């Protein structure tokens, strides 16, 4: 359950280390400390339910920093990623991910 004020780990090699969720959608740009940036959540500690009845839970809440179009800011991604990202058209992230589960 990612809410505003939730701290998220950053799973790529953009220079962010930790994010705090402010709100759920769009805005802004470059990458400095206490900048407002967009990130997409790739794994949650809260279970995810899938249509085939599978329930998945990850070990941490992680996010990947993205830009306006949804392309990741970094060049590498660490850790496993939820398959839902493929359906949401985050193809670049999915292709960089070491494992999609």
């Amino acid at each position: 359950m990612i809410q505003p004020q939730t701290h998220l780990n950053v799973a790529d090699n953009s220079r962010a280390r930790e994010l705090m969720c402010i709100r759920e959608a769009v805005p802004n740009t470059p990458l400095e400390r206490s900048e407002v940036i967009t990130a997409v959540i790739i794994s949650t500690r809260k279970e995810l339910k899938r249509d085939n009845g599978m329930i998945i839970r990850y070990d941490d809440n992680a996010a990947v920093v993205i830009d306006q179009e949804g392309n990741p800011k970094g060049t590498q991604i660490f850790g496993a990623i939820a398959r839902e990202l493929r359906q949401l058209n985050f193809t670049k992230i999915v292709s960089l991910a070491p494992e999609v589960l």
Partner: protein
Amino acid sequence: MISDIVNVIFCLGNCVLLVNLRRMRLEKCWFCSSTVYPGHGIQFVRNDAKIFHFCRSKCHKNFKMKRNPRKVKWTKAYRRLHGKDMTQDSTFEFERKRNRPERYDRNLAENTLKAIKKIDKIRSDRASDHIKNRLKTGKVQRQKEARKQLELGIHLVKAPLALAQDSSLCLPKIKVNVSQAQTEENQPMEE
């Protein structure tokens, strides 16, 4: 288990629907080793991308408590480790994790289903034999002790007068003429 991606094509008049049914796989619970059927249990993905399947919240909670399944008595891991259950058998080799999906072949599927039933029966028979053999020594021991107890406690079964008249030892199976008061003293004897 053979698992395949099945492409089912429905023809409804002019319209052709292509339904891609997703692969189904029966997993093993990481904690208790029982099968996890689709729609059951939780999968946990650790940060090193190792997946743990759990069949129910009991196993999941035990995992969160960091318990070692090899030390928890009701798990298959414990039972196999301590020789309670059969570990090595040729029937186990039929069930292996196969990652290549096979093209659907009706004959193959039919034969596999038949084989699964048969192998299952053979394996469970062998497993129960294993347990029976394991318990045999205990059973023999208990019978021996029962016999000894009968010898020592024959005065509880037969009236001393009757015993004096007929000194041969009577085991419970042989009918003995005892009065009502005597039969109540039979209770402390083991079954």
